[in-house]
């Protein structure tokens, strides 16, 4: 299945207020096309998507946090699966768009194209609700189940390499993305995040 089709399917079933953390590369470009939203925190750099998502999940346990990860990205910090699993978050849906390649880095294969199964690793790390899917209809069922129930969910979606032509270029850099996302959380949670004059002390 195509990653873009998977993301379109997900965008159709995700709630407006669901926070999505996406890793840098084609996943973020495609996701911001199918679901443009201030609830997206995209272009998180290599190996850090699940760590940032865990911090958000702990800070906002009543909000669903969806992580859009890549196989190479997650492989860089596999221990983050174990760290997250042992926190038993009630609100993480961790989706890995596993194309078995470092597509954003030139296309060389990753180890998931060989012997390694991220779904099995996630289960071994302690994420019991772990599945691997390779068909759109199976992904749809798995995603809807995860989005509709509490818990820590992991879905390895086996996708083909390749994106779609003529995707819009991402024009937001990190600082702008930070302000937009932080202001969104402030607005929807009624809390203060940005404190240019820290008045606690």
């Amino acid at each position: 299945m195509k990653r873009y089709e998977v993301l379109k399917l997900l965008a159709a079933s995700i709630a407006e207020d669901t926070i999505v953390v996406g890793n840098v590369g084609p996943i973020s470009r495609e996701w911001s096309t199918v679901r443009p939203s201030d609830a997206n925190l995209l272009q998180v750099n290599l190996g850090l998507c699940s760590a940032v998502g865990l911090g958000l999940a702990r800070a906002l346990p009543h909000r669903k946090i969806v992580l859009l990860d890549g196989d190479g990205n997650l492989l860089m910090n596999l221990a983050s699966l174990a760290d997250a699993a042992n926190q038993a978050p009630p609100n993480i849906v961790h989706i890995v768009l596993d194309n078995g390649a470092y597509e954003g880095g030139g296309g060389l294969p990753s180890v998931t194209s060989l012997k390694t199964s991220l779904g099995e690793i996630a289960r071994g790390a302690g994420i019991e609700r772990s599945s691997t899917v390779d068909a759109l209809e199976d992904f749809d069922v798995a995603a809807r189940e995860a989005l509709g129930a509490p818990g820590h969910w992991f879905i390895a979606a086996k996708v083909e390499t390749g994106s779609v032509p003529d995707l819009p270029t991402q024009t937001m850099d990190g600082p702008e993305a930070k302000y937009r996302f932080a202001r969104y959380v402030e607005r929807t949670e009624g809390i203060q995040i940005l404190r240019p004059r820290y008045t606690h002390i």
Partner: protein
Amino acid sequence: MQKEAVDAVVGGLTTAGVNFISLLPDSDFSQLQRRVGNDPAFEYVPVSTESIGVGVCAGAWFGGKLPALLIPTSGLLVASWPLTSINMAWGVPLLLLIPYRGDIGDAFWMMGPYKQTTEPLLNVLQIPHTVISKVEEISGAIVDAFGSAISWQRPVAVLLTGETIK
């Protein structure tokens, strides 16, 4: 680390408003880490590498928490990539609390290299830092560093040396 120093660190973190702590277990901070792990004033997330801790703290800040990361001296080297790619690139605040192994007076050969890496690396990463060697200076230094980190939206480090980590 003596109890007085642990008390001073916890007092500083509390006064500063820190309410979220991530850490990698470390012998120099073990008493402190047990203490904050059992203190309901802090949300507590232990991690397996310092790089994950940086990411967890960044996510917690985006969710409204006020985070600090307690890491070993060597861990600063591991954390340098996420500190660069998240905190520096995006402008995300973080208090780094680090035992300054390898400072003058540390008579263990294995710690020697950290004199050559710790402060130079903080300077390269443009992370403002203060070096504290007296227990009575700990709390104020943490409060000042945290206020600066949050308002400047960048990491600030407190290095503990001398009697503070004996």
